[in-house]
């Protein structure tokens, strides 16, 4: 473990800004930092289309993966030019982008339009799925499923890719530094989709040269400021500075993500100096950590809401009144106050302020109204039949205590909800057995409702893909949101989707906005983004 002094930290940060390129080959005094995380990757891969998770966001951005359009992690998550320097609309369904010249992949190749077209092509993203996805759930061929040793795309990759890009028809190479994205239907969110998690660019040559798809997914070759040098699943991920990074020399020599499942162990590693950052700190530990003035805890609310999802076809839950009763039985503010020490908020439904004009300002989470919940249960003729509730053990911060509180609140209005602890996401979504309610979270990868409510609960959302819920009118509204260019119509469609998905035929209920907290040494000049992502470029180190 390399111990870094305050002087070294400040010096390294300053040198990263002022050192000319010819100095790169000289002595490398940049620090190596270690970060203790609860989990490195759920899927044991580093491929953005496979590891679509909160923990994945942390290791991917901004260190490893980059898209054409990116986010200013430390500036209200605004969209900013990244691998594209400018873009313009050609029509409602097409956009042209100018690529940043001189961008080098980790293998030394220069990024060109061919890499962009390949990144969004059938070999890497879509398989043989059609570009006319709006309004229906994508069928994926089930025959010829390969072994994990093969080069074929795992079958979930096209499903995930089409969730992000339901109607992308093709990417046209105009010249070496110009590409055009052609959609099969009008889409006002193309820019947002380009900025979202899953739209990052890969090296075509590196993908072709990988022995198997899994080999690729363990060591993807991208344009990010750091490259993968070692990945031991469930143990360690080591990223190393990519000194040819287009944005300047990265300030850190290496970043080591160490998987430490236990919270006390992560905190102990921080306090003993073995790591400089300890992630996923529960709110009740913040006071104890900051009791020592050498350490501080950063973080707060992020673009992710904790939700629970309902199975519409469950014998009890098929009556929407029971689901509605469940939503009214919860005192969300009490959960925020007691388990989060008020460090997060109850959001206005499945939306965020950064939706801007698309936000529905007068919307709110279902009111805490036990009487209303009891009336609904009575009207539904609920007789106390058990409702299974699947969850993981503290995958989300405070997940288990929150679930216990929920069950008690439901019990108080007469609902018999029974917790079923599961060990992984596959078991959570398993179609076998009785599915009632399960824990989930929903993010907004870009600043439009399409990025969340349509992405998660539209025709190609996971809830419908795993057969939990469907609503014909909501699906029609999803298509409007995805394809209409009429702002007023889109806004109306979003409100209607909220009404259906949260009130009339609930598919989910929002619990609270998610928050993440990272403990660090106070003398390290670094700021946490309002996201799981951790920014380790020169603009956020040592300055």
């Amino acid at each position, binding site marked *: 473990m390399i111990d870094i002094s305050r002087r070294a930290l400040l010096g390294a940060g300053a040198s990263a800004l002022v050192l000319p390129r010819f100095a790169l080959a000289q002595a490398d005094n940049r620090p190596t930092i270690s970060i203790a995380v609860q989990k490195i990757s759920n899927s044991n891969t580093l491929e953005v289309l496979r590891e679509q998770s909160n923990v994945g966001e942390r290791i991917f951005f901004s260190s490893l993966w980059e898209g054409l359009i990116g986010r200013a992690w430390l500036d209200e998550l605004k969209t900013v030019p990244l691998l594209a320097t400018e873009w313009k609309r050609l029509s409602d369904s097409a956009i042209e982008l100018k690529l940043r010249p001189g961008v080098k992949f980790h293998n030394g190749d220069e990024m060109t339009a061919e890499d962009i077209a390949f990144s969004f092509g059938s070999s890497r993203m879509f398989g043989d799925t059609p570009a006319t996805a709006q309004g229906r759930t994508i069928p994926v061929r089930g025959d010829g499923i390969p072994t994990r040793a093969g080069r074929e795309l795992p079958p979930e990759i096209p499903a995930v890719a089409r969730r992000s890009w339901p109607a992308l028809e093709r990417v046209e190479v105009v010249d070496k530094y110009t590409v055009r994205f052609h959609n099969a239907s009008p889409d006002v969110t193309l820019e947002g989709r380009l900025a979202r998690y899953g739209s990052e660019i890969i090296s075509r040559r590196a993908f072709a040269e990988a022995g198997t798809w899994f080999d690729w997914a363990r060591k993807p070759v991208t344009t990010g400021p750091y490259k993968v040098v070692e990945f031991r699943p469930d143990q360690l991920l080591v990223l190393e500075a990519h000194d040819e990074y287009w944005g300047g020399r990265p300030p850190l020599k290496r970043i080591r993500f160490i998987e430490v499942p236990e919270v006390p162990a992560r905190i*102990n590693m921080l306090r003993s100096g073995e790591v400089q950052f300890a992630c996923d700190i529960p709110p009740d530990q913040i006071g104890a950590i900051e009791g020592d003035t050498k350490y501080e805890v950063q973080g707060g609310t992020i673009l992710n809401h904790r939700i629970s999802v309902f199975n519409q076809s469950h014998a009890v839950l098929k009556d929407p009144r029971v689901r509605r009763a469940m939503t009214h039985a919860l005192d969300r503010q009490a959960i925020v106050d007691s388990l989060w020490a008020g460090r997060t908020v109850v959001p206005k439904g499945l939306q965020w302020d950064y939706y801007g004009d698309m936000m529905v300002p007068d919307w709110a989470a279902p009111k805490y109204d036990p009487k209303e919940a009891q009336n609904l249960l009575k009207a539904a003729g609920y007789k106390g039949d058990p409702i299974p509730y699947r969850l993981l053990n503290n995958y989300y911060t405070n997940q288990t205590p929150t679930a216990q509180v929920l069950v008690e609140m439901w019990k108080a209005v007469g609902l018999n909800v029974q917790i079923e602890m599961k060990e992984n996401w596959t078991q959570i979504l398993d179609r076998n057995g009785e599915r009632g309610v399960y824990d989930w979270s929903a993010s907004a990868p870009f600043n439009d409702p399409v990025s969340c409510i349509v992405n998660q609960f539209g025709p190609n959302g996971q809830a419908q893909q795993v057969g939990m819920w469907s609503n014909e009118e909501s699906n029609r509204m999803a298509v409007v949101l995805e394809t209409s260019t009429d702002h007023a119509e889109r806004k109306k469609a979003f409100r209607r989707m909220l009404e259906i998905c949260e009130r009339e035929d609930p598919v989910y209920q929002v619990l609270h906005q998610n928050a993440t907290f990272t403990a660090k040494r106070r003398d390290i000049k670094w700021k946490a983004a309002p996201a799981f992502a951790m920014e380790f470029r020169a603009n956020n180190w040592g300055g």
Partner: protein
Amino acid sequence: MLRFLGTRLARALLTLVLVVTFAFVVLRLSGDPALLIMSADAPPEAIAAFRRAWGLDDPLWVQYLRYFGAILHGDLGQSMRDGRGAIELVAERVPATLALTLPALLIKIGLGIPAGVYAALHRNSWIDRGVMFLAVAGFTVPSFVLGLLLVLLFAVQLGWLPSGGQESWRHAVLPVITLGMGGAAVLARFTRSAMLEVLGQPYMRTALAKGVPWHVAVRRHALPNAAIPTVTIVGFMVGSLLAGAVVVESVFSWPGVGRLLVVAVSNRDLAVVQCILLLVAATMVTANLVVDLLYGVLDPRLRISAGRT
């Protein structure tokens, strides 16, 4: 002697077959492998095709015979998460685990047996009481508690040793001590009891009455006879070399077989879990076999009686 050896070997093989069968049945009953290999996002058609492709649609007994046949050919299957051979994955982790459990075993034997013998030879003295107090404490404090206490003291407060990971030999010190202290406590208690029982035997009184010096009587008569129960415990500890550090590996983020087992079980990575169980069973069975043979060496009566049956 050959019959004695043959009987023990047959029992060992039967135990392995039972473990393999048990692991197969329990793991198949606890979840559908197709759902685990495929992502939760995979559509039903894909999952059905996968079941067909991998023979998961076949009756359980057909799958079992195929699985058993593969084991006989040295094929322990593929990891569902990694796409690599289960044996390859497990073999990668074995050195890390042995790096903890072998030194810990030395501590257990090197500390536990002398402490137990010494306590027995000084029965009811303050040394005996002190040793037994430590032994009871070491025996009853869970390893994760002891581990965290050691981390707080030596890593956080004193800063002498790292608290987790596997970077250098220094990272192994605290987990080895955590593992070693608990085992040493167990051995000390067993050794003391065995010694006290032997010291009270008539043949010890006879030896002393015949004028054999105390230290000679202890060395020639007490220690060999007290060794039999102690060897049993040591054999058990040797048998758990591969899987005896599950908790400690988790507390110290040590990437050994134990942590692999925890992750594999939570992900229902069947081939890996089965492979670990098989290896653990084989280690345990081998250790027990060696212990059985040692019984014969330590106590000729057992050898003779086995030869007669």
